[in-house]
């Protein structure tokens, strides 16, 4: 971060946060009878939001931060929206991908004749509002508000099917997320509020911190643990199992929320706490901070191993997401400039790659009704665009150039080397290898294993509706784009 950024007061952060809420009113008003109008409102909101967010880029690149003061929550702690480099990357990723997902959702929901689509689009909007809020929060309390809002507003989406599995998934989802946020996070926040200058500095991300002067080493470690596990949306083991269970939701939800928005909100909060509440100098000096690195590495390896054994495509992708979230947390725990930047950029890179994979999984489901990896033989011939995009997404997640995933992994390795953690580099390499094992066979099987089977009944199989195929092709191309334009992201992340 630049030492003393210029503060620009602007209403645009608020507009970006509130646009989806306005859209929700319009969506609910349109209802099922005017469904084309309803979808237009969703797309319109996405476009407005993305353009507002992107219009802030030049200001932030010039070294400013944009602020909007909403109201005073507590003495000394305002509800404050602030756009800096980290927040802007995340907000831009979420809002641009929302447009793609909205288009995709039209094809998916209509293709499968899903019920209660108005409810679906409405709560989708609310979730996006909360996501934007997290990205633009200026202090811990504001971030907590939007964090909880996101937990609750995604519940109707997870339980969309309203059946037995939905109930089980929804229960796991909420009990993990609310238990951690109310029982671990809230005390940690309260602790920071009263014992650090009476809430003057500790809650704000820009204030500089007095952690090391105020607390003993043990207390800091306890706080660190409370925060890291309290933000359970980051999917760190052992608080990860809500994510595979949330896969009962319709695929657009899994794609945008459980590969991009919700989980990235978790890791984003973790990065905020590590780099802006504790600060990387404090963490480097802190004894026992390696525990966090171990936890992140363990999550990466274990989740990849579990992913190998999953036959359900969406569940496999979910475990892959847990592993990739581990990368981001790892970057934050390394507590170096390059590691943190790598983590922030990885949010964008993984988002683009993983949403492609989920879009493909959904498209396969719409076109063929298949959801298991073992059923996908020969599908590549019938659905070339979808499976091609799946291959590109896989390669990006694995981290091969010239795809986006390579850049962020590169900086994570640099960050690890800066701290002399050679074993972390080994972990990263092993994990990449595991990624190859559990992602590539899916695409390979689809393209090559056709000869043995002669399935006559699937002669009529073809690509999913264009509303599904266009977004997934775009995000696949985006994976290339992110590699070539990664310098913008890196400079936003402070490198």
């Amino acid at each position: 971060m630049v030492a003393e950024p210029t503060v620009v007061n602007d209403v645009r952060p608020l507009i970006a946060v509130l646009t989806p809420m306005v859209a929700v009113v319009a969506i609910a008003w349109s209802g099922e009878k005017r469904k084309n109008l309803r979808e237009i409102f969703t797309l319109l909101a996405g476009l407005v939001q993305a353009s507002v967010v992107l219009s802030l880029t030049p200001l932030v690149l010039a070294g400013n931060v944009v602020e909007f003061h909403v109201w005073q929550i507590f003495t000394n702690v305002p509800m404050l929206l602030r756009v800096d480099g980290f927040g802007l990357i995340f907000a831009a990723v979420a809002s641009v991908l929302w447009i793609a997902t909205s288009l995709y959702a039209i094809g998916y929901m209509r293709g499968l004749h899903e019920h209660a689509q108005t409810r679906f689009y409405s709560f989708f909007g609310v979730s996006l509002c909360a996501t934007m809020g997290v990205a633009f929060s200026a202090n811990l309390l504001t971030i907590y508000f939007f964090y909880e809002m996101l937990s609750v507003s995604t519940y109707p989406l997870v339980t969309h099917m309203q059946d037995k599995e939905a109930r089980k998934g929804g229960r796991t989802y909420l009990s993990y997320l609310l238990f951690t946020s109310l029982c671990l996070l809230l005390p940690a926040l309260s602790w920071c509020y009263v014992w650090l200058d009476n809430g003057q500095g500790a809650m704000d991300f820009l204030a500089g911190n007095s952690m090391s002067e105020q607390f003993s080493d043990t207390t800091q470690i306890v706080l660190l643990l409370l925060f890291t596990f309290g933000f359970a949306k980051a999917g760190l083991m052992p608080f990860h199992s809500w994510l595979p269970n949330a896969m009962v939701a319709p695929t657009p939800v899994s794609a945008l929320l459980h590969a991009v928005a919700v989980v990235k909100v978790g890791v984003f909060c973790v990065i905020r706490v590590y780099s802006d509440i504790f600060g990387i100098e404090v963490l480097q000096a802190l004894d026992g901070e390696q525990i966090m690195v171990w936890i992140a590495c363990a999550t990466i390896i274990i989740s990849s191993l579990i992913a190998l054994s999953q036959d359900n495509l969406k569940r496999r992708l979910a475990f892959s997401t847990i592993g990739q979230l581990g990368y981001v947390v790892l970057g934050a725990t390394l507590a170096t400039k390059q590691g943190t930047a790598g983590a922030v950029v990885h949010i964008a890179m993984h988002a683009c790659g993983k949403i492609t994979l989920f879009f493909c999984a959904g498209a396969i489901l719409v076109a063929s009704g298949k959801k298991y990896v073992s059923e996908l033989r020969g599908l590549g011939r019938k659905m070339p665009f979808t499976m091609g995009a799946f291959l590109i997404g896989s390669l990006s997640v694995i981290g091969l150039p010239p795809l986006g995933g390579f850049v962020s992994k590169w900086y994570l390795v640099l960050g690890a080397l800066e701290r002399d953690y050679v074993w972390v580099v080994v972990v990263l390499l092993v994990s990449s290898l595991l990624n190859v094992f559990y992602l590539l066979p899916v695409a390979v099987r689809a393209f090559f294993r056709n000869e043995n089977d002669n399935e006559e009944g699937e002669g009529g199989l073809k690509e999913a509706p264009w509303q599904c195929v266009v977004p997934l092709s775009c995000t696949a191309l985006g994976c290339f784009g992110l590699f070539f334009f990664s310098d913008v992201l890196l400079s936003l992340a402070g490198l």
Partner: protein
Amino acid sequence: MSENSIALIFVFPLFGAVLCALVGRKSRNLCHPIAVASLAGALWGGIETLRRVIASETNEVSYYFGGWNADAYPRGVGIEFRADYLGALIMLVVVGVAFLVAIYSKLPVAEETPEKEGPFYTLFLLQVTGLAGICLTGDAFNLYVLIEVAALTGYGLIAMGSARAAAATFNYVILGTIGASFYLLGVGYVYMKTGTLNMVGIQEVITANGLADSAAMQVAFVFICLGVLIKMAFFPFHAWLPNAYFHAPTATSSLLAPLVTKVMIYVMIRMTLTVFGVDFSFENTLWTEVIPWLVVIAIVCAATMALAQRDVKKMLTYLIVAEVGYMVGGIWVYNYYGFIGSIFHIISDACMTLCLFLGVGIILRKRRTTHFDGLRGLFRKMPFTMGGFFVGGFSIIGLPPTCGFFSKWYLITGGMLAERWEYMVALMFSTMVMVVLFFRLIERIHLAVTESGENIGHGHGDLALPESETFFDEAHWTMLVPLLLSASVVLVIGIFNQDIVNLIQDFLEPFDLPKGTGR
């Protein structure tokens, strides 16, 4: 007129009650407008009073009924009503809640207690007179009288309910009378030792004559606290509450559930801070060591019992008992932030309990039951009602930005600074129970799954209900508007909590409470 605003808070409902009693026989339909109008007048008086308290330099406004004002020491004679920030805020909550319930009560009263509008609204208004009086009186004996006014009218209001309400009321009468007797005994001791009944007067005499070590005063304090604890249904003295509120008519439980227990917490705060003084209440007794543990037991037991209920209304009555534990704990962890939490929780809990009980009343009216079995498909039928209901639920859980989050925040902070970890753990436990309780309701309302976990209908959200149970059919506006108003109050108080907390802080500042320095 403005300088008499304190008196108007009583005059309006009191004369409204008389009027209802007079016209109730001949023209029953007039009672509801009379009640609403007189409570609107009281609400105006309440807002005016709060404005005057804020404007006054001492943050305090006194009013002597009949102009009796004896300045002699010890202060004794005269009917003094004193509004400071604490009293004025709680009084405003009382009058505001009563006003909303009065609007709401039109249909439930006409349907559940037909042809009894006259007696009902007479008792209703007297109840409000008593509760608002408790918040404002400056005299320990008048407080007793007003507690009894509220209690006696409460017995009448509850007994109007279903067939089993009479038995529940009898239970309440016995426990309520025991509680009031304890309180009265305590006041008797205080009068013997100090020779005054004026609250500030008692405090002055205690300081001047060094009565802090007097055994009689200690006994008086214990009696008064015990009486108040019984009256507020603190576990294990809660046995009267669940049945009484469960069998009471809808309008009655909507009025009593948010107010009665909360007003008793106010009495406890008033007694410990103003009457006996901080040093006497918290430094000289074992209570500060023991009560937090009792609170832990109370919260855990009440929350667990709420978990065992299969009826929404019954479940809510146990929640009230748990919430009483929160507030008593906030007082007895003996910390500045704990007191802020307790006082703010009185206000926010009144609003959210109101919200929930109004919602339950609507469910009862539409489905004829509040049992968990009858909840399916309610979101489709009444989206606005259920939306308002769940704002109240989220507030009980403590999700931001509802007011429940902020009161819980201050309570947790107080417990942490006082290093009362057991209290914090109990709060966390009960928070988790609330999450389970309310999302269990959401599941039953939202999902198409039977109690035993089997899918029903043909998938795709098919609730397998006759169309009459699911088509859009919102509650009548006289019921819906108060519910939505109370839900928005829950949000507004949360969002603008800073303004209220500032007033509470101004009230607490002179008492020099420990702020905690722990590390």
